[in-house]
């Protein structure tokens, strides 16, 4: 199993060495960024069971914070209170992005700890919408619909000694790959620990979890915070890769894309968002190559989402796992059914 993972990693790392088509790399980079975002959403949606539909807010905050820090800005916080910042190095901007996105996650976690289900969904949707409108209207800071343009690319080191510039696609590909692997490892550590079990407990049975002493609020806030910081990192990478950010980065449709990736791949599984992200990151390009209009592509997305909920309610990864269990280990044929939907 370990060998398979290593082989996969080696393959992924080798791609820029033999892939000369820059467009393919571009698609892979964008897919990778979305996979990181989807993985972070999975921590909330899949492990704590809270359907956050404002997740793109953290992604966008990361993108804006990092861009603003690296471009510098001058804006009135209140009438008469001028905030000024000189351009900072990109890596510092990215760190700020992760931190501030994480802080926003903490705030949202604290705010919404007492609401669940439909209310949690609407609070998160509202949060993202308010942030989008601020980005749109605080023109002095964000340039509003004119977008933040000419965002510098990431550079590490100094020009005198050794400099690593992330202006070209292969470098960006490696950056995304490394951050994605890192995020995967962090999430795996988290969910296979006491904290992750507490999150799962919250998802599966909140009263029982509290009865054995799990402080669900604390772990919900932790999950929101880690998840937001990770989404912020994805947003920062995105901003310095495409080098332009506009308020549409907060559009609901991007949250929906992440949700589709997680749900299709398998929420609450480590590999789920990766599989879902690969499918829905590459599918648009395949459909485009097949000369299918983008509208049709979105219709296909919508229909797929409905079909997945009906026929693969747990997603692809658990379904494949169950299938393999049934076919390869007939000894444990008493394996549980794929669906454990409680009959209510």
């Amino acid at each position: 199993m370990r060998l398979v993972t290593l082989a996969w990693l080696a393959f992924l790392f080798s791609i820029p060495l033999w892939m000369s088509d820059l467009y393919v790399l571009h698609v892979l980079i964008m897919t990778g960024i979305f996979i990181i975002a989807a993985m972070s959403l999975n921590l909330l949606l899949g492990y704590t069971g809270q359907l956050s539909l404002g997740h793109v807010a953290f992604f966008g905050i990361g993108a804006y914070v990092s861009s603003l820090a690296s471009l510098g800005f001058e804006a009135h916080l209140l009438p008469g209170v001028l905030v000024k910042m000189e351009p900072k190095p990109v890596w510092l901007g990215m760190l700020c992005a992760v931190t501030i996105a994480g802080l926003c996650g903490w705030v949202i976690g604290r705010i919404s700890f007492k609401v669940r289900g439909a209310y949690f969904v609407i609070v998160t949707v509202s949060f993202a919408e308010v942030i989008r409108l601020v980005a749109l209207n605080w023109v002095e800071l964000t340039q509003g619909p004119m977008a933040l343009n000419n965002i510098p690319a990431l550079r590490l080191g100094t020009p005198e000694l050794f400099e690593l510039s992330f202006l070209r696609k292969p470098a960006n590909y490696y950056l995304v790959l490394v951050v994605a692997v890192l995020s995967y490892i962090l999430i795996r550590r988290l969910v296979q620990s006491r904290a992750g079990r507490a999150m799962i407990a919250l998802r599966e049975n909140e009263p029982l979890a509290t009865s054995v002493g799990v402080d669900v609020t604390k772990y919900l806030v932790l999950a929101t915070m880690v998840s937001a910081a990770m989404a912020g990192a994805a947003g920062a990478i995105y901003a310095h890769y495409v080098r332009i950010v506009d308020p549409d980065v907060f559009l609901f449709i991007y949250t929906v894309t992440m949700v589709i990736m997680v749900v299709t791949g398998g929420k609450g599984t480590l590999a789920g968002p990766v599989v879902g992200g690969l499918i829905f990151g590459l599918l648009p390009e395949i459909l485009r190559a097949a000369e299918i209009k983008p509208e049709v592509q979105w219709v296909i997305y919508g229909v797929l989402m409905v079909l997945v909920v009906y026929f693969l309610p747990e997603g692809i990864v658990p379904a494949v796992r169950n299938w393999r269990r049934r076919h390869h280990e007939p000894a444990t044929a008493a394996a549980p059914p794929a669906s454990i939907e409680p009959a209510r």
Partner: protein
Amino acid sequence: MRGEGSTEVGGLRRGAQPAYAGPIFTHLRCAGGRENAAPSFDLKRSVEQLLQHCLNALILGGTYALLGIGLTLIFGIMRVVNFTHGELYSFGAYAMYMWVMVSGVNFFVALPLAILLGVLLGAAIEFLLLRRLRGADIDTTMLVMIGAWIALQNIEQLSWSGVAKSIDSPFPASPLVLGPVSVSWNRLFVFVVALALIAATYALINRTKLGKAMRATFQDRETAALMGVQINSIYTATFALGSGLAAAAGALLGPVFVVYPTMGDLASLKAFAIVILGGLGSIPGATIGGFILAFMEELGAGYVSSGYRDAMGFLLIIIILLVKPTGLFAQKERIG
């Protein structure tokens, strides 16, 4: 052609800036009376502005209430967070466009037809998508509704293209003038019809057998089923009614504004805001919530910043959920 003829403006050169070469046509005489708009007493103008804002808000509130009631009915009775609500809104508007502009049907005939189509689409969505999800948790149905929303919106975009359409209305172009303020006949019509539909919905819920069964289902589904209420048909009726109200809002506002595929997104979000404001499942709450949101938006845009107009509702949601999570007029404790 009467008048002065064309004037040429050219050769404007300043520094290294480019020269101006083209001719420019203009009409030099001003329309009579326009220069007479001399500055007058400021307070009077301010009062007029306030009155106009309030009138605008009142008119807007009617359609907001319509949208909110539809959504809150569906949530209250079915426990479904209906993401297709905005799509039914834009569907109503497109239905209106189709009847009036493509088929040439009379405006006042087209309106009920558009609403009817909305009712039918709602019933179809319920029958095809939601019926087999009975008893599934709220998140599962939400995902299905999001899928349906994306598919519907893009089918609309495919059928009608992304270019905004406008619908001719049969109302006189000059507005109804009420002293210092004025309102177009079309908006007034929208307001009156919206109020009538709200009243009809109240009557349906409170006076009819169907309404009684709906209320029973809202209170307690199991008991209602034991008492012989056909839950399936109640659900279909509820979803169809809620959808019809959304389609009505779209059909009414389509001729006032323009019709485009993503018009429902903001409508959906605002409907959520209204419903949260009034408390999930509360019809009077949604009605009042609709008007509160309209006033906040209009006054906020007029006196704070027009850009944050749409943010008002969402800020309100966050504040309300922090202070009183059940909304202003909740009837039952929150569900989730």
